Every structure is written in structure tokens, then in C-alpha cells.
């Protein structure tokens, strides 16, 4: 390794690379901050730019977009209660409430600091432990993936709001919607109703626009304009984060970075799953779980550090085994291949300097993301003071443009609109939308791995307890469920005590 580090730094620290990193970071931050314009779309759009470059500047540009996209999605989640990308949905739960308390800058700063920490943590893991971690990841198979999904589904209880029953109904709705399209195991169509485009399934980003962005617009349309104006005169948004808040962030940031790395190395999972797992874990372990959903700094820090910790981890299977960790990284693979580089462990000996330059570059990307983020935070924070009559139409335009741009068709615009109306109806029925999103994120993966595992074992369910990794995940699931039950019981007890006290008064 050491013999490659010095030539790698020589290859990396050039003006061209630094320039491309910064362009990538800027483009990624802005793109991801706009609802509907996902990181993957941004990478696809800018990929041809890299074909005229050599491998390192090309990868630096794409990694800039990728990492900054992880942070950029949180901006709109905090400012307008609409995640710019699916993986920023967990950030929205606490980011926007904190912004509504007049601490927009602080919320953006927490997201930036946590993202940077998560990003650097995973970049260092990639640099020092890449091949070792990849070997462990290569042992995880279909039953282990299924257990990961079940663990993910336990989060539903944590994001169900006041009523667990309503949360479960919403989650089932999400799982049902995830079934739309071709059956992953047989290719037969399900719930497509003869509509040809539906056999591809529903795009998560499109659903997200409807569920979180358009529903906000519809909700605003119900109110008077005067009620929508924020009294900005009372807000003293200095963006200060107190010492105690920094202390509280430390544990969730460390643990979530670790979770992000673990999720990132599993092909097929990504930043969305990582941020939800971490958010749930942070809530379960927090001394102030009641603050979650109301502007908890721990909630923002956990979700953001996890989704950025995925960035380096997804590169581990790519660079060591040639298997892309997620869709965006799969596109980056083509940037390497067009330069004649076929990723895999053998590349570490044939082109070790290039490999290490890319890995070191990821640390640099995160540092530049931090520097740019510090400046952009001030600009972004001003969005809350834009009058609603100007901001709302802009959001609507971005939502529809974003929905169209995902697959270049108007069908998706219609889907976003349908989901907006559905979310509005559910809001009227007091049903939480977040479990629907979780169902959408995990539904397909859960079903596919469950059915495939049973196919492999010829229907024998003991396959789900067949490896040490399965047992570890099972223990985690039991601990998570026990924590949730304990939390719910103590909530009920508190409510009863308050009710008795009120009766006595």
C-alpha cells in the first residue's frame, strides 16, 4: 500500500483535479437540493463530460457530485420539508422542525458537519480496510440481505407517529405499491392494469415528489396567504450549535457512520436504507427520544452521517470486486471502463497508483464539500425568507421538471401528481407518509430476497438462520423490537400518569 501512496498523491494533487472536484461538489450540492433532480440523474447527465478526461479527474468530478449530492439532499429537506433526494427523507423529520424553530442555519450546519464526518469516515475505511471489508461483504448472501431488510422494517414503529396501527397501515400501503410492476422472480406483471409503463414499477424519486413535495403545496393551498408568512423579524438565526449539542451529536454520528459503511458495502442497498437504520438506532439509543420528530440534533446528525458514510463504502465492492454498491456507483464504473480500467483486486497491483489516488481523492472531495458547504449554508438559509407566493410556484415547477426528467416522460409527472393527491388524502386521515416511503424503499428488496432465499433452499425456512451473519441480524432485530416495545410501554405509562394527575387536579 505505502509504495503506491506517494505516486498516488502526485497524481491527485494537480490543479485540474482540484478544479474538477470543486465543480463536481458545487453541481452535486445544487442538483441534489432540488427535489426530483437526484444524484444518479446528475451523474448520468454529466458522465459524457468525463469521457474526454483521464481516469482520475473524471472520477474526482463524479465523486464530487456523488458525495455533495449526499449532503445537498438535506438542504431542501430542512428548508421546505421536501427531501431533495430519497436518502434525505430521514433528515427531513427533524431538520424541518428545527428550521421552523428559527434555527435553519444550525440545522444546515449539523447536516454539513455530520455529512463530512460520515464521508471522511467511509473514505478512510475504503483506504485502509477496503479489501478486508469487501471479503466479509462477499460472504453475505440472499438470506442475510433478507434479514437486513427485516431489520429495516422495524423502523416503521419509530416513524409511525402517534398511532402504531396507522403507521403499519401506511407501511403496508407502501409495500403494496412496491409490488407494482414485473414480478422480480417470474417477470409476470402485477397491478399494472394494462398500463404499459407500469410494468417497470414506480420510481422512488417520482413517488417522493408526490408524497412530500406536492402534498405540501396542496396543504398550503388550503391556507390563507397571511397564515403562510413567517415572522422572520423574531428569528435570530446565528447558526450556533451549543457545546451540549455537539456532545449529543457525537455518539449518533460515530454509530451512524459505522452503520452507513456496513450498509454501503452490501450491493443493492444504499443511502436511503442507511439513513433510516441510523435514524431508528439513534432514536432507540437516545436519552431524549421524545425530541425525535420535533427538531432533534441527534436525528439530523444520525441520518446525514449515515447517508454520506455510504459513499466510500459503495466503492469498496466496486474497486475490490468490480461489483458496484449502488446505481450511481455503477455509472461511475463506466467512467473507469472507458479509460480501460476494469476494477477488481488485480487492478491494485497493475494500476495501484490510480486506485489509491481515487481513494485519497475521496477524502479531498469531502473536505472541499465542507468548505463549499460553509459558504453555501448562508445562501441556502435565506430560502426560508423568500415570500411563499414566489417560492411555492418555483417549487411546483422544479417538482414537475424533476419528475419529467427522471425517465424523460410525462407519465411520471402524472404519477407524482397521483401520489401528491394520495398523500393529501392520507394527511386528512391522519396517516403518516414516512412508513409508505419505507415500504417503497424496502418492499422490493425484502420480497425478492425472501423468495429467492426460499427458492435456493427449496422452501426450507432454516436458511434464514444458516449463517453467523443471519444470527447477528436476528439478534439486532430482537433488540430493536424489544427497545420499541419498551419505549411504547413507557410512553403509555407516562400518558396514564399525566391523565391521572389531570383527573386529580
Amino acid at each position, binding site marked *: 500500500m505505502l509504495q503506491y501512496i506517494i505516486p498516488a498523491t502526485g497524481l491527485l494533487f494537480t490543479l485540474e483535479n482540484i478544479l474538477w472536484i470543486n465543480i463536481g461538489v458545487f453541481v452535486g450540492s445544487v442538483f441534489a437540493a432540488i427535489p426530483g433532480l437526484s444524484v444518479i440523474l446528475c451523474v448520468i447527465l454529466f458522465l459524457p463530460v468525463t469521457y474526454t478526461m483521464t481516469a482520475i479527474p473524471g472520477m474526482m468530478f463524479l465523486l464530487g457530485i456523488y458525495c455533495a449530492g449526499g449532503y445537498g439532499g438535506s438542504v431542501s429537506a430542512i428548508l421546505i420539508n421536501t427531501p431533495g433526494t430519497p436518502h434525505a427523507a430521514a433528515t427531513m423529520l427533524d431538520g424541518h422542525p428545527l428550521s421552523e424553530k428559527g434555527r435553519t442555519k444550525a440545522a444546515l450546519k449539523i447536516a454539513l458537519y455530520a455529512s463530512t464526518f460520515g464521508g471522511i469516515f467511509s473514505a478512510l475505511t475504503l483506504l485502509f480496510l477496503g479489501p478486508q471489508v469487501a471479503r466479509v461483504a*462477499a460472504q453475505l448472501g440472499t438470506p442475510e440481505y433478507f434479514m437486513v431488510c427485516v431489520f429495516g422494517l422495524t423502523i416503521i414503529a419509530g416513524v409511525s407517529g402517534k398511532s402504531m396501527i396507522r403507521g403499519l397501515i401506511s407501511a403496508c400501503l407502501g409495500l403494496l405499491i412496491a409490488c407494482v410492476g414485473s414480478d422480480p422472480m417470474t417477470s409476470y406483471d402485477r397491478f399494472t392494469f394494462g398500463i404499459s409503463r407500469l*410494468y417497470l414499477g414506480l420510481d422512488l424519486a417520482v413517488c417522493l415528489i408526490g408524497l412530500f413535495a406536492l402534498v405540501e403545496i396542496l396543504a398550503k393551498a388550503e391556507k390563507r396567504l397571511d397564515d403562510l408568512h413567517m415572522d422572520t423579524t423574531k428569528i435570530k438565526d446565528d447558526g450556533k450549535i451549543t457545546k451540549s449539542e455537539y456532545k449529543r451529536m457525537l455518539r449518533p454520528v460515530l454509530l451512524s457512520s459505522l452503520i452507513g459503511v456496513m450498509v454501503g458495502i452490501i450491493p443493492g442497498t444504499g443511502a436511503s436504507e442507511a439513513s433510516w437504520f441510523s435514524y431508528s438506532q439513534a432514536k432507540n439509543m437516545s436519552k431524549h427520544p421524545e425530541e425525535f420528530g420535533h427538531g432533534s440534533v441527534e436525528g439530523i446528525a444520525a441520518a446525514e452521517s449515515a447517508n454520506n458514510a455510504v459513499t466510500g463504502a459503495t466503492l469498496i465492492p466496486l474497486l475490490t470486486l468490480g461489483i458496484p454498491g449502488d446505481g450511481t456507483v455503477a455509472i461511475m464504473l463506466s467512467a473507469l471502463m472507458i479509460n480501460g480500467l476494469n476494477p477488481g483486486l488485480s487492478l491494485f497491483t497493475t494500476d495501484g497508483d490510480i486506485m489509491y489516488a481515487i481513494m485519497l481523492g475521496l477524502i479531498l472531495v469531502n473536505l472541499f464539500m465542507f468548505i463549499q458547504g460553509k459558504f453555501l449554508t448562508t445562501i441556502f438559509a435565506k430560502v426560508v425568507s423568500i415570500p411563499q407566493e414566489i417560492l411555492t410556484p418555483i417549487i411546483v415547477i422544479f417538482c414537475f421538471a424533476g419528475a419529467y426528467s427522471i425517465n424523460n416522460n410525462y407519465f411520471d409527472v402524472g404519477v407524482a401528481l397521483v401520489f401528491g393527491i394520495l398523500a393529501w388524502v392520507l394527511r386528512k386521515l391522519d396517516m403518516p407518509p414516512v412508513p409508505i416511503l419505507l415500504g417503497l424503499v424496502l418492499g422490493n428488496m425484502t420480497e425478492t430476497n425472501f423468495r429467492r432465499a426460499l427458492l435456493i433452499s427449496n422452501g426450507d425456512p432454516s436458511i434464514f438462520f444458516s449463517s453467523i451473519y443471519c444470527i447477528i441480524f436476528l439478534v439486532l432485530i430482537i433488540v430493536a423490537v424489544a427497545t420499541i416495545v419498551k419505549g411504547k410501554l413507557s410512553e403509555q405509562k407516562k400518558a396514564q400518569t399525566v391523565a391521572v394527575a389531570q383527573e386529580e387536579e
Partner: protein
Amino acid sequence: MRKRLLSLGLALTMSIGALAGCSGSKKTSWKVTCPWAPSGVAAVVSQKAAEMSTKYSEDTTLVAEAIKGDAATVNTWVADTKANDPELVFVGEGLLSITSVLDPAKMQFTYEDFAYVENLYSSIFVLSADAKLNINNISELESYVAQADEISVAVNGATGSEAFLAASLFGAMGAGDKVKLTPYQSAAEAAQAVAKGETSFAVSHQSQILETYQQKGVTIVCAFDEKALEHGPFAGVEGVGESGYPYFRNRCFIMARAGTDEEKVSQLKSLYDEILADEEVVTWLQDTMLLEVDTMSKEDVEAHINNVLEIVNEYKDIVAG
């Protein structure tokens, strides 16, 4: 005075703009739509071809675009284009020979809606086996098949080309009833499944199994081609055609809209032929992408589609149940 100056400025700007539009340039941009994943082999090769187009033509530029969606994307393309539109699209045997048989309702087009331009590449799939089985050639495979109770094969998608290649090979060996196809969400996942021991075999593109092979996780049994592989890290691996088993290559046909002037189609074909003959492209395709340059005539294309159609019709019961 101010208004006059403004009007004059505006008129001047408009005139310059109009003159710029009459520069006499006849450069045509042909948008090439790949209906599969932007990270897939076809999209990457298309990008390379687009990059090279400026080297070989002064009046035609290829612009690569990837919109995943398979039949849905091609449906939209066919509905939105007409003859002579500067638009190209990729189709392969997956759409023309598999979907057309198994799920024709998904396709709102036929082969007649296209004018064939060229084949972008040929990809030869390989059968890999769990290294513990120590199967290295077709004769060892035949022995294994004869005594096995179940033959599990990892494939990309439930009804893709890989599934039909596995079904046709084991079906032709008389073991169709023993075959268990396990579908995965991507070609890379399917290739890994065999190394993890989830299945005994996998059918995959050569580049997807290369790393696992180099780490000694799998052995390469045979290639789905007429003869042994000639190039790349798997050179010498015998082709199933040598033993009389059915096979087909994975191909990517570049199509214009039916009715497009023959002269235009012919110009495009010449451009693609020049790009595909470029030494840099040939080396890159062979060494990095593990693909082959395989330019084809219209008759070759129709023969390929019919060959795959025959295989699909014969073995569809193994794949689709």
C-alpha cells in the same frame, strides 16, 4: 434617444443571431437512445462510439443517451419518431425474440418499425461453476449433469438471455426437468451468487465473472458460442457449439426509424463501421469490455433473431414454467 438606441441594439442583436443561424453548417446530430441501464455495456460502448464519431465524420455527430425501460422506452421512441428523424435506438434479441414470444403485449412495435444500421458489438456469455465442483469443460459438465438431482443456475432476470442460454444448454443435455433457474436483479449479482455457493452455476457476461474467476471462486466451463473463445482472459474456453448444443450471442442492433432514406442509413452504417474498425476501439472492446466487433448484414440479423426465436420457443417451458 434612449429608446432608439435600445431598438437599434435589439435589431443588431437579432440580425447577428439570424446570420449565425445561416452559417451554412450542415452538421447533423443523431441522438442514439439506449433503452437499458446507463451503466450497462451497451450504454458505455455507445458513449465510446459517440466520442469517436467526431473523428470520422465532419457532418454527422452521434449523441449517446440512455433511458432505462427496455420495451417501454422503445415503445415511446417508436411512437415519437418518424422516418428520417435523426434518431437511433438499440434493440436486441431480448426484445425481438424473447419479449415478443413471452410477453408480446409489452411491445407496441415490431421489427418492421426499424431500419437496420449496424450491430454495435457481440457479447459471448460464459457458464461458470462453483470452484468446489471442479468442472472445467463440457465433458465434465455432462458427467455432472448425468448424476445430479438438481442443477441450480444463477441468471440475470427471470426471462432474460442468460435464462434461455442456461435452459437450452441443460435442456439439450436432457436435464431440463432438473434445472432450477434462480433470478437475480443484476448480472453482477448473478455472477457473484455462484461464488457464494447459492447456486452451482451462473451464466454471465465475461467481464462480470472475471474478478471472481481471478480470485479462484469459480471455474469457467464453456462459452455460448460456436467455437472456443479466441480473445481475452478466457481464450481457449470451448464453445458449446463444438459439442452440438444450441447457443446465441448477445447483440446490440442500432436501428433508425423505418422509412429513413437508404442513403442516410448507409452513411450511418459506414460511420459505425469506421468507428468499429478503429484500432483503439477494437482493443478497448476486446481487452476492457471483453466484447467483440461483429459487424453484420441485414440477413445476418434476421438469421440471429430467428435462431433465438427457435431456442425461445423450444425451451420457454423451462424458463417460464
